[in-house]
């Protein structure tokens, strides 16, 4: 099982859970598994054309999937995949 780390702003779709685990062979499969099991999260990750949104980065380990094979990046058991959203808080 690969581990997907859910960032705080998306945890309202995962019942507050910070980690999602599923068997998947690539990043796309893992994100699809997440979207299938947690309704409402899909539109926050992908735009209407199915592309990953530009304020969301996905990492396998410490590397951006754009530097690897994108959504087709292969993942193995025990890989840690992170969804990193832009957040802006700081002052108020």
């Amino acid at each position, binding site marked *: 099982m690969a581990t997907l780390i859910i*960032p705080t702003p998306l945890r309202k779709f995962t019942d507050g859970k910070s980690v999602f685990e599923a068997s998947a062979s690539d990043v796309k499969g893992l994100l699809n598994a997440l979207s299938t099991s947690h309704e409402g999260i899909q539109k926050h990750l992908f735009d209407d054309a199915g592309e990953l949104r530009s*304020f969301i980065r996905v990492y396998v380990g410490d590397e951006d999937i754009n530097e690897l094979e994108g959504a087709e990046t292969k993942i193995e058991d025990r890989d840690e995949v*992170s969804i990193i959203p832009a957040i802006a808080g*700081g*002052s*108020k």
Partner: protein
Amino acid sequence: MSHHDITFSKEELERYSRHLIIPEFNIDGQKKLKASGVLVIGSGGLGSPLLLYLAAAGVGRIGIVDFDTVDESNLQRQVLFSIQDVGESKAIAASKRLKALNPYITIEVHDTMLTVDNAREIIRKYDVVADGTDNFPTRYLVNDACVLENKVNVYASIFRFEGQASVFNERLQDGTRGPNYRDLFPSPPPPGLVPSCAEGGVIGVLPGILGSIQALEVLKVISGVGDTLSGRLFLFDATVFSTRILKVRKNKNNPLNGENPTQTELINYEQFCGIGTTAKQREVAEMSVQKLDQWRKEGVKHLLIDVREPYEYGIVEIGGELIPLATVLESTNRIPKDIPVVVQCRSGARSATAIRELEDAHGYTNLINLTGGILGWQEAIQPELPRY
């Protein structure tokens, strides 16, 4: 002035002695701090520890940009301020505190909002910028102005229990600049996909941690000691106490300094962030808080529903029936069609959304938005209620 020309008084040498006895830092590092100017944008949650530590450490010239005033709800985390400062200009109150902390440095107050018109001019006067702002338009404004003015942007942002930090646009050994915010996030979330006003909140200590990390990175950038977070993104999740460091790469499509730069000046950041540009929403029937007050006093038959979240309802409520926005469409059995139904939230935006959704999905024609929400009610009708 080169840092080699900097001198210190006896008092300064004693004050900074714990820096001077670090072999890698020593008096040379301290001279660099004194010779440098740092601009801190936002003197709130992140800005408080940033400013306190930069001033204490002996950064020679510190600029503060903030247009806001100190509010009671700031004191939970903005440790720069005291109860006496409530209602005062943040930049001025901060300046007083910092001058009392360290009289050997210069504090420059910019009691203004950072805008497209003044950003480059203000940033130009400093060596390093530390971004402690709280919204996407200003984040991109600060980033772009720093890239265009060749300034380092020491970044952190926070949300609830989670924080991010990095160092953007640092000059690298080969003379090029490290990645910036647009390499990491090419564009911001459109309104509706970001946490709304109801979903904000931050645990009080978190900005203290991230702001302190920012201050540390500022000192490293200036002194040249150690490896900064340039090209790396630090992540901290306080709920499970996890820290991660991810790589940040330059993006060849970066409009500022990618392979084919298309942006040579600042742009309209409100528009870039989709604010005010989305199709105008259909208007809904509105009612003033005074009118609702009158209805209640006269016993006019109606129902008040409150579409905020339960944790907001726990802070303050005005007798409305709690039906959170996300559940209104499945709660129509609790929303009659035969009497006026007044819909209320914190400030009036979510309640208008609830009304549009109910009208579209279930044909309601008796829904009225409470203009200004519970904040408006508190202000005009029941000032004794708490604001949040």
